[in-house]
């Protein structure tokens, strides 16, 4: 494998940190300029990430060592296929979310907008940091920065409820990462003497199996951002955050960091062979399967739209975990593809939830009857997102489910196959009623709010900038289905490197 040394990954991280400083300096005084910084930073970041793509697609790896703090704890970046896959998705969606955020924040005339944009930019920096980490220490560092920098975003509303949600968020994410993940990293260092992500894992054959099992479980428990049950309840709690935060962070950056870390740990710290020989993949697959089904069932019973989406996220994240836990080429492929498929689909759904809130101040599903006539674009995008989640062609979600199914067959996991089937039905059960109600049900006559229901036939969309954003992501969901080659190629490189390929 050819290695290129380049500071590009560092620049990709620094861009939004510089933006943070500019945002704080500009402040409330010049709001347009402040928002311009966000947009510029997001575009520049995306450009930098995209500029690394050709090299990676040609099988090269970009490396950059920032600082060797001690001989074993090194701040080092490595851009490989899976890293750029994640970074590309996240940085692209940041551009759209920035647009959307501006619409949302101004539409609702929110307070503390400077703080909002500043911490958002820090969180994006840290997400890039996780994507480009060359070792688990660097990844851990950025993982913690994400946690800390998103805390103010979750608590943004500063109501007692928001603070409570944010507290839960922090206790879960910080607590488990310090208690379990750090321990796991230290044990890894102690027994393997190496913290770098290697394609066949860092553990030697002669290490006690019990210790490896313990470390594996500590990692799984420590990476709570992946919201594997029973450590998932921070995610619904974090839904008190403003919708753009939920959209980008809790559908893309934060939770995807979690599953990305799990994929990293499974493939690059442990390696397929060790996990296969210890049967740990199956254990993880069962935990993930449980999460998929249980979270879907809970989602069915939620009336709050954002909460239903949150539980849907919990369930969908475990697809990624499940895929990689199958330890088969197609499983890994499906797992990686699901990162992007779910990102586009779920961000669309969250965007629509936010748009509905900005336009009508409605948060509950039972209030949405007939809303499709008022907000056709929004609800159209919602339908696209929902269908993608369920896994129907021609939407991105179909691709990943296709590979996941293959993966299950490859590793003879019939139970997993059944789980996939049941969860698809459950997905349909909790999404389709919303679509149906929005388009085909008559709006309920709200006696207290007559003037609103009267103009049900007129268009009442959210601000244009928000609608544009959510339509874009919906189109993206379709485009990925038709032109998946870039993502498939990247995933293919990962699969070839880690599993030996098909």
């Amino acid at each position: 494998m050819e290695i290129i040394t380049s500071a590009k990954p560092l620049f990709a991280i620094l861009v939004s940190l510089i933006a943070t400083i500019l945002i704080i300096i500009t402040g409330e005084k010049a709001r347009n300029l402040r928002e311009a910084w966000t947009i510029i930073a997001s575009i520049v970041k995306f450009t930098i990430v995209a500029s690394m793509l050709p090299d990676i697609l040609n099988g090269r790896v970009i490396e950059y060592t920032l600082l060797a703090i001690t001989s074993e704890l090194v701040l080092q970046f490595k851009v490989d296929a899976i890293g750029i896959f994640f970074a590309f998705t996240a940085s692209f969606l940041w551009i759209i979310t920035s647009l959307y955020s501006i619409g949302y924040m101004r539409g609702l005339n929110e307070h503390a907008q400077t703080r909002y944009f500043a911490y958002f930019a820090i969180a994006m920096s840290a997400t890039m940091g996780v994507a480009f980490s060359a070792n688990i220490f660097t990844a851990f560092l950025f993982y913690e920065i994400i946690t800390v920098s998103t805390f103010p975003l979750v608590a943004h509303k500063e109501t007692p409820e928001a603070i409570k949600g944010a507290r839960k968020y922090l206790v879960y994410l910080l607590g488990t990462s310090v208690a379990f993940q750090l321990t796991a990293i230290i044990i890894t260092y102690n027994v393997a003497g190496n913290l770098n992500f290697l394609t066949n894992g860092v553990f030697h054959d002669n290490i006690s199996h019990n210790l490896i099992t313990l470390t594996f479980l500590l990692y799984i428990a420590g990476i709570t951002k992946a919201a594997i049950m029973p450590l998932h309840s921070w995610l619904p709690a974090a839904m008190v955050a403003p919708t753009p935060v939920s959209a980008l962070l809790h559908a893309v950056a934060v939770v995807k960091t979690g599953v990305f870390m799990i994929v990293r740990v499974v493939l690059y710290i442990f390696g397929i062979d060790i996990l296969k020989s210890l049967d740990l993949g199956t254990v993880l697959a069962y935990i993930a399967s449980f999460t998929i089904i249980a979270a879907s069932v809970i989602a069915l019973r939620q009336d709050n739209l954002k909460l239903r989406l949150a539980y849907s996220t919990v369930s969908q994240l475990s697809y990624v975990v499940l895929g990689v836990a199958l330890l088969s080429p197609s499983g890994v492929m499906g797992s990686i593809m699901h990162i992007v498929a779910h990102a586009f689909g779920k961000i669309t759904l969250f965007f629509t939830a936010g748009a509905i809130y900005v336009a009508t101040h409605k948060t509950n599903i039972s209030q949405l009857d007939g809303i499709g006539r008022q907000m056709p674009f929004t609800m159209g995008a919602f339908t696209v997102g929902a269908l993608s989640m369920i896994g129907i062609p021609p939407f991105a979600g179909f691709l990943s489910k296709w590979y996941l199914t293959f993966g299950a067959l490859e590793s003879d996991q019939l139970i997993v196959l059944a789980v996939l089937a049941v969860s698809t039905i459950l997905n349909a059960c909790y999404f389709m009623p919303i679509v149906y109600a929005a388009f085909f049900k008559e709006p309920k006559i709200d006696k207290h709010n007559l003037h609103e229901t009267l103009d049900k036939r007129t268009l009442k969309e959210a601000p244009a900038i928000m609608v544009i954003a959510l339509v874009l992501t919906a189109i993206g969901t379709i485009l990925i289905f038709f032109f998946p080659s870039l993502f498939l190629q990247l995933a293919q490189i990962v699969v070839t490197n880690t599993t030996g390929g098909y």
Partner: protein
Amino acid sequence: MNLSEHSSILIVVVPLIASFLNVFIGLWRRSLCYPLFLLALVICGFLSIDLIQNIINNGTIRYKLGGWMPPWGIEYVVDHLNAYVILIVSFISLLVAIYSKRSLEKELEESKLPYFYSTYLLLVTGLLGITVTGDIFNLFVFLEIASLAGYALIAIGENRSVLASFNYIIMGTIGACFYLLGVGYIYIITGSLNMLDIAQLLPKLYESKVTLAAFAFLVVGVAIKIALFPLHRWLPDAYTYAPSAVSVLASATMTKVGIYVLIRISFTIFEPNFSKDIIPAGTILVWWSTIAIIFGSILALGQIDFKRTLSYILIAEVGYMVLGVNLGNKEGFIGAVLHILNDALMIACLFMVTGGIYYYLKSRNIEDFVGLNKKMPLSMASFSIVALSMIGIPPTAGFFSKWYLIIGAIKAEQWIAVIALLFSSLVNAIIFFRILEKIYFKKGNSTKDINVKEVPVSMLIPILILATSVILVGLFSGKIISSIIQFTVPGGF
């Protein structure tokens, strides 16, 4: 004359002379006291830098006082460990001196200031004297100078400080007497008072019961001085009610010097294998400090007064260092020595911020910290950085010492200690995020904080310096370890 040759003695003599002059200048012209006081500490700072450079370049310095050959005369032995602790002590005491000018305005009568500065300098003299000396009896003398100054500085505080100081005197004297008794026991079987000389004579006597008792008394004596749980009872009251500047100085330097003495006893006077193999002292201390960590953390959780919270956190942190030192492997030891520096920086900064809050708010109650970030943004930013470091989030300094400590604990297969370390990180997370939440996200409501604003510049600068150094020390921990700390690891590890 080459001054740098004598820097090991000058560093003790300079604050001593300044303290002497201060009393008399104070009678004549009070306004000159502060400049003199500051000047002495600046000189100390330069000397300590000179000393550590000297050590890094030329290795251990042995300075014979009065020209008498050891073991007949007293000698100063400065190696990497001393120089490192000296640097910490002089750096912190200089920062606290800058900080104390405005902070004391509201906590002490002006006419007492010359005596305060003198006592402060005597405390610094004592601490530096303890650190440089290579003679166990001389160490006792300086220990008492530092302690007497410490008792007084605590007694001039508010509210219950006098009673706290009295309890400290009783406990401190027991500690010092135990130490002296230990010295007597060492003396009766070896006939020597010089540390290096004793180190050569003792191994033959490891089987003796007297050696065992000497070790026990020395360690327990120091354990009282560093407030190792359950000998910590004097500390929370003393540090809570002392004037802010004194709390900062005492918390950041006195316990650290105590840890230094503990390291000297366990690994210079006695060989490392004494506490490891011959008697199970290392194991006992590991368990003991594990309990200290757990209880310190639990007790910290229940406090309302923030200075008291910090005192209990300090007790847990002392547990960290004692644990690391006694784990019996290189990683643990490096972690402990690194933590001496990190903890000094972090605790000093936190106590300073608390003092800053108290300066206008007149309260240290955590409930009153609501909405402070609007009033004092820079202090609160520093507070947040240090809070992250206390929790152990990279790249702040706290992470790296914790990293080494945990690796050391795993290598020593002390799983309970690993859990205790993680537990205390979690408790710190709860404590600090509860406060950060109040500072940043709750709306100010009380009428009390109307006059609150950012602390005066002379108080703010030390806070900012400490907060910055928490990050810098974190990023350069590898460098610190490779150029200083790795040489302090005793042989046989």
